């Protein structure tokens, strides 16, 4: 990479930061408990809209892993989720009725909050339907991982999005509040992912899984990206570029080894496909607030008419992180 290219990326990063700074006005404070954040705390950032039914399990899941404080932007919910979040002692909530799309799908809002509150912290950026799995997550808290990353001078940790789905029709098993969504959507595709390098940002571009298999078999280039870097030792100069798929400076995207070795990595279990999905997809389609003219949601709506079964004979049932490790979806790297 030449000097010119790296200078342009630097400008781009500045641009995202300035944009985030401008967008701060779109956020209004609902509950601000950020003064309780202590220097070593692990922070979680998220945006959500009408996800109240998912929130209790989501918060508990990450509390168990050792997240100390949640910073959540609520995008104009109507189901009382903002109020629910505001009641939680370890949650700070902002709300915004501005356009989700024009905030680059929440990235600008979170970039601003991270700039302001996450400097020097390990911070995890996930959606309410994403559940982080990392090596040894059943025996070691998240703090063990971040301490090890610190000791190894690693600043970012990748966790690929793994789409989970139920067996049978989506509406066959209704999700109830507080329930582990993986109990319902317990299946995944283990080995149909393709990846290529993004030379500009240095990240891997991963596509595949059930969404490519069922919704995009004829236009694979439109299948959603699955690469994510959700866990980062934040610095106020960092900026997420596109969702949590990539960041600037680009060195943070170098989460993969190029000389044959394996770096440590995790998985984000993506429990998108619950019974709530059909109505959600219809709503999102009408709002048109999603990526690339909501091409993804158009494809869903098209296929959902026939109520497809994402499950196939070769789907794998989720057991634990060791299973994902053996299947080659994540790696312990040299953490032992």
């Amino acid at each position, binding site marked *: 990479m030449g000097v010119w290219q790296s200078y342009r990326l630097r400008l781009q990063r500045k641009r995202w930061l300035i944009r985030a700074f401008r967008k701060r006005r779109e956020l209004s404070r609902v509950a601000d408990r950020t003064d309780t954040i202590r220097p070593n705390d692990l922070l979680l950032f998220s945006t959500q809209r009408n996800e109240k039914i998912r929130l209790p399990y989501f918060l508990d899941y990450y509390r168990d892993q050792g997240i100390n404080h949640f910073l959540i932007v609520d995008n104009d919910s109507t189901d009382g989720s903002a109020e629910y979040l505001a009641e939680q002692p370890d949650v700070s909530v902002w709300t915004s009725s501005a356009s989700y799309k024009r905030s680059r799908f929440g990235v600008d809002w979170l970039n601003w909050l991270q700039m302001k509150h996450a400097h020097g912290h390990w911070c995890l950026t996930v959606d309410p339907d994403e559940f982080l799995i990392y090596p*040894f997550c059943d*025996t*070691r*808290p998240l*703090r*063990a991982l971040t*301490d*090890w990353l610190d*000791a*190894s001078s690693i600043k970012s940790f*990748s*966790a*690929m999005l793994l789409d989970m789905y139920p067996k049978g029709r989506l509406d066959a098993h209704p999700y109830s509040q507080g329930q582990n969504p993986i109990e319902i959507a317990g299946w995944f*595709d*283990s*080995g*149909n*992912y*393709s*990846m*290529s*390098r993004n030379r500009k940002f240095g990240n*891997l571009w*991963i*596509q595949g899984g*059930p969404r*490519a*298999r069922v919704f*995009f*078999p*004829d*236009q*694979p*280039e439109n299948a959603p990206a699955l*690469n994510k870097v959700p866990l980062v030792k934040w610095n106020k100069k960092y900026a997420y570029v596109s969702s949590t798929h990539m960041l600037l400076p680009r060195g943070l995207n170098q*989460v*993969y*080894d*190029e*000389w*044959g*070795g*394996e*770096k*440590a*990595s995790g998985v984000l279990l993506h429990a998108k496909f619950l019974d709530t999905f059909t109505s959600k997809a219809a709503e999102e389609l009408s709002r048109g607030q999603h990526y690339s003219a909501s091409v993804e949601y158009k494809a869903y709506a098209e296929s959902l008419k026939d109520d497809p079964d994402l499950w*196939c*004979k*070769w*789907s*794998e049932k989720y057991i634990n992180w060791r299973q994902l490790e053996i299947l*080659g*979806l*994540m*790696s*312990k*790297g*040299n*953490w*032992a």
Partner: protein
Amino acid sequence: MLVHTALGRAEQAARHWSAAGCPVVIHVDKGVSRKIYERFVASLSDVKNLEFSRRYRCEWGTWGIVAASQSASELMLERFRDVRHVYLASGSCLPLRPVEELIEYLEERPQTDFIESATTADVPWTVGGLDHERFTLRFPFSWKRNRFLFDKYVEFQRLFRLRRKMPNGLTPHMGSQWWCLTRQTLSAILQDPDRAEYDRFFRQVWIPDESYFQTLARQYAIKIESRSLTLSKFDFQGKPHIFYDDHLQLLRRSDCFVARKIWPHADRLYEAFLTDPAGAMKRTEPNPGKIDRIFAKAVDRRTRGRPGLYMQSRFPNEDWENGVTAAPYSVFCGFSEVFENFEPWLAKSTGARVHGHLFAPERAHFAESQTTIHGALSEAPLLRDYNAAAFLTNLIWNTRGERQCFQFGPADNQDINWRMAKDPNAQISVISGAWAVPLFRSNRNFMDIRKEAAALQKIESDFLNVLRSPYTKARVRIWMMAEFIEAPMEPLQGILDEIGPTQQRRLSEVPKMVDLNGFGQFLQNLKNQGMHPYLMGDFPVERAIETKSEAPRKPYLVR
């Protein structure tokens, strides 16, 4: 005991040592703030046989750690006259066996120094390319804070061949910084008349804490056991592995006296080994090898990875894959064209999974006409062609443990040619020119046939050029079709033998060859149209004429 963080754990460890009757001298890093230091000193004020030594700033790889160990050792030897062995430990060290056992062990070996100490020439331990140069160059700049200057100054010295000589002709030795020395040896090192000179030299050695005592102990020790009593495992960057709660059973069986480094929040480990004396005692069968294996595997995973795996954190550059694919597989070109029942026959005689044309334009023909296969890999052609190489590597990765065979030909997607050719796991067998057989048997206009034959011949010729290139690592066999059908048995037997243990020792049943009557004439017709099919070799037109009157040929059989 050298301490810099997690003072609470250090206090626990210090109390443990002291309770067993061992005098303790603690060195606290100068980086620790005065307030925290004083609180730490106060918290240990009730422990009798415990002293604090003068504080130095200990940065990794610098002299500070040696200075700290020197002054702490001096204080120890001077203040506690009965001490025979001095054990250098850190705040994140955890005694695994009761301290009494260690004391007994050392009493039985009163003149033995336990210090890992090997000459640099003989052991390739070092990480980062500096081994003997650790001693011959100077390192005034910090590696952690001034990496640029550090590297530049090393380059500068290499360029101008600046060297230093070891003082008094010492032989440089290196090893773990956690040692256990006898009073005799330690005091000899500390009271050496030339110590000022040695110190001056080692001050500018790279990572002196791994070489100062290791080198000097060789001068004075009566009996050196070159090993550390502290269990400490290092990863590929030379940084110690950390132990967590889930290592409890491993550590119990490790049979070592002391382990480092322990994660400060590993409550169960501290509880098991420090506060519960009975817990530490009830050790199961010692199995120290297991820890070694686990950490050796971790290093191997980080440096070499799993062959044939492409994933979010392993995406090797081309030719650095350490295994393009995960397992051996076989590719057959032209066999299913020449034989009528080749696929079922192959599946039967090898027990392998035999697919049709996986890269066919209309879809991936998986074995048993499945629409998806292991790993939910889909037959959709666009999805496959979007990244054909990933399709292949995924298939082989997903089906580890089961040999895969598939058909390939010039009508298929050719994107994977190089990927297969450069893969030592690929066994590629080609009957060149066999693509003409389906054309010969088809019911199409001759001009279309001619056009397609020309195109296929061109593609296959390119494919053969790839297979014959010097970069090819696959096991390649190529026969011209004419040559192959003369004696198909031997090639088939050879391929099967290579695929692996088959049920039969010899082929008892061969696949049925398609009826090639008139094929020679067909080729001659193509030639007459100006399209010379050359890949299949010489097919005499006459042979077709000779056999014209005979009944259809019987399949080859071996008696």
